[in-house]
């Protein structure tokens, strides 16, 4: 019974208050924040829990990981929501509505809204600038357009201002007596035409307002109509049409693949037994490239220096040190290789004992060494691409195998799982 009383916090000896010492012996177990319930349940008397008050200090001092800090109290007070009246300054009729507003109640019990200014959504009430003309401007600046009277243009501008250039709405509400059916494009073309003419006319020429969107991107009704028609066509396609087209594309891909395979087979057959006996001397010798030769002789018309691919290159100056120039070129090419490629180049040159620039850089030696470096780089690139392809192929094979393996024993697997 004593335990129960302890847990309930009732003093053991009837109504008598317990001595402070006994309170200390039975510290109240409080689960620290951030500790899972299960972990807490594992703790027992042998692993006394630190009072959470103390933990707070440790947390602050040592920044115990995984234990979240207590939420700070908001200095503004306690959050409450209040049903309040509000006015929208964007409205002109002064209509008042009510809604819930986030407020704070501070220590003195005063309640003040979190957002002190005017209605927060009023700032989104943006009005686009509508170009309007007076009588004189209409006479002098606006080009007459067949089918558009002054009255109808006035009406259009009125609607534009009222619906803030939302042309679908304008076209929907458009009702001018005696006017033909006007599409969105017609309305847009007229309005933007008038606006551009006004802008240009007021400035006196198109140069000073060349950066304005109205001038830079004049509205093109034909383009817009074409775009909408195309879109409509695309959206109207039926599911059957889509499927038919996909099927054709798939078949085309299959035919392409077959052709490629056939071409590859032909190539393999044409090369003397290249596919049948890989690595045999006869097969490889057939494709070994000739190594270009270089001479020390200076031929008239052939410049004395080399470029990165060991092609002759004219020097920039009349007098040049060929060895130094070649060494510089080789260093520059090596510096262009990045990361792994740079290390691979260095390693490959060391492997064939060619990492040092030749001691006696004559014309032939320079040309040969530049070629050598170029060829090593090319070979390394080729090797990389082959390796990538091997990985890809291995991945495909694995996927294929998994597929094959998966097909039959699926039911067995399920049975095994069931057991």
């Amino acid at each position, binding site marked *: 019974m004593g335990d129960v009383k302890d847990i309930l916090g009732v003093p053991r000896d009837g109504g008598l208050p317990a001595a402070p010492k006994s309170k200390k012996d039975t510290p109240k177990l409080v689960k620290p924040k951030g500790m899972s319930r299960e972990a807490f349940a594992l703790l027992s008397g042998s692993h006394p829990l630190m009072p959470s008050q103390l933990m707070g200090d440790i947390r602050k001092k040592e920044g115990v990981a995984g234990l979240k800090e207590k939420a700070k109290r908001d200095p503004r007070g306690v959050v409450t929501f209040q049903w309040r009246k509000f006015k929208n300054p964007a409205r002109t009729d002064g209509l008042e509505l009510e809604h819930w507003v986030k407020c704070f109640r501070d220590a003195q019990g005063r309640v003040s809204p979190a957002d002190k200014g005017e209605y927060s959504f009023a700032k989104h009430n943006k009005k686009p600038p509508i170009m309007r003309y007076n009588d004189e401007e209409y006479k002098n600046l606006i080009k007459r357009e067949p089918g558009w009277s002054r009255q109808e243009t006035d009406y259009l501008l009125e609607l534009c201002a009222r619906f803030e250039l939302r042309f679908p709405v304008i076209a929907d509400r458009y009702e001018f007596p005696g006017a033909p059916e006007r599409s969105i494009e017609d309305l847009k073309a007229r309005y933007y035409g008038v606006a551009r003419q006004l802008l240009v006319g007021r400035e006196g020429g198109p140069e000073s307002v060349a950066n304005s969107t109205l001038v830079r991107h004049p509205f093109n009704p034909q383009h817009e109509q074409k775009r909408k028609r195309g879109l409509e066509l695309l959206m109207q396609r039926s599911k059957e049409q889509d499927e038919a087209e996909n099927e054709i594309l798939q078949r085309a*891909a*299959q035919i392409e*693949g077959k052709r*490629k*395979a056939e071409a*590859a*087979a032909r*190539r*393999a057959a044409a090369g003397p037994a*290249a596919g049948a006996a*890989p*690595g045999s001397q006869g097969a*490889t*010798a057939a*494709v*070994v*490239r000739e*190594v270009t030769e270089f001479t*020390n002789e*200076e031929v*008239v*018309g*052939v*410049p*004395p*220096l080399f470029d990165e691919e060991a092609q002759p290159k*004219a*020097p920039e*100056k*009349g*007098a*040049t*040190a*060929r*060895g*130094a120039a070649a060494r510089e070129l080789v260093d520059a090419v090596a510096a262009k290789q990045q990361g792994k490629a740079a290390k691979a180049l260095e390693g490959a040159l060391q492997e*064939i004992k*060619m990492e040092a620039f*030749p*001691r*006696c*850089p*004559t*014309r*032939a*030696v320079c040309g*040969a060494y530049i*070629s*050598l470096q170029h*060829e*090593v780089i*090319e*070979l390394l690139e*080729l*090797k990389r*691409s*082959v390796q990538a*392809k091997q990985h890809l*192929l291995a991945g*495909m094979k694995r996927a294929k195998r998994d597929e094959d393996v998966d097909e039959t024993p699926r039911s067995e697997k399920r049975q095994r799982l069931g057991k």
Partner: protein
Amino acid sequence: MADSADKYVTGKDGERRMKGVTLTVPVLTGTCAFFLGKKASEYQSHKWTVYMRSPTGEDLSHVLKKVTFVLHESFQNPRRDVEMPPYELTETGWGEFDIVVVLHFRDDVKEGPLELYHRLKLYDDAGVSNPKKPVVLEMYDEVVLWQPTETFYNRFTAHKPAPAPPSQLAQYYTTFQPDAEYQRIQRARQRLAQIRANVENTAAQLEAAHEAGAGWAGS
């Protein structure tokens, strides 16, 4: 006249130059350093000579007006001109640095000076200092004169090579085998070409396997 247009180009001072012609002058920069042994002090441990010579032992004064050796700034008067062959300069010091060897051509060459860089080598790679055996480093290079002036070209081609004045360092000169070096590089390139062919074969097989696999999977 058409012939002369084919043969010559005009330089920036209006001089006639040989179109597409290259003159090659092999040159060699070298340093030869003696350890001073017992006489070595902290700042003067080595006696060294920097020189510029022809690898074939020819006299180069028909091409060169003078050679300037630009030493480290810590030397007194670091720009040293040598007007006559042998183009040599001897100094004492303790540290290795890059020496700039500036070749000044004769006036009819009509080319600016050409700078060659040579690292002074005092200590051999083994780190042993033997007062009797100098540390020699020679670097071969070739001065190429692209489209030389007609006057210099005529003088150069008519010139009969003369031996360079004897030098005390001649016994330490090293030899160069450009042909052997060229053959070594070419052999390496041939091996590379073979490896490349092998790799290309592998690539072709892979390609075929890939396409066969793709066709198979697709059908």
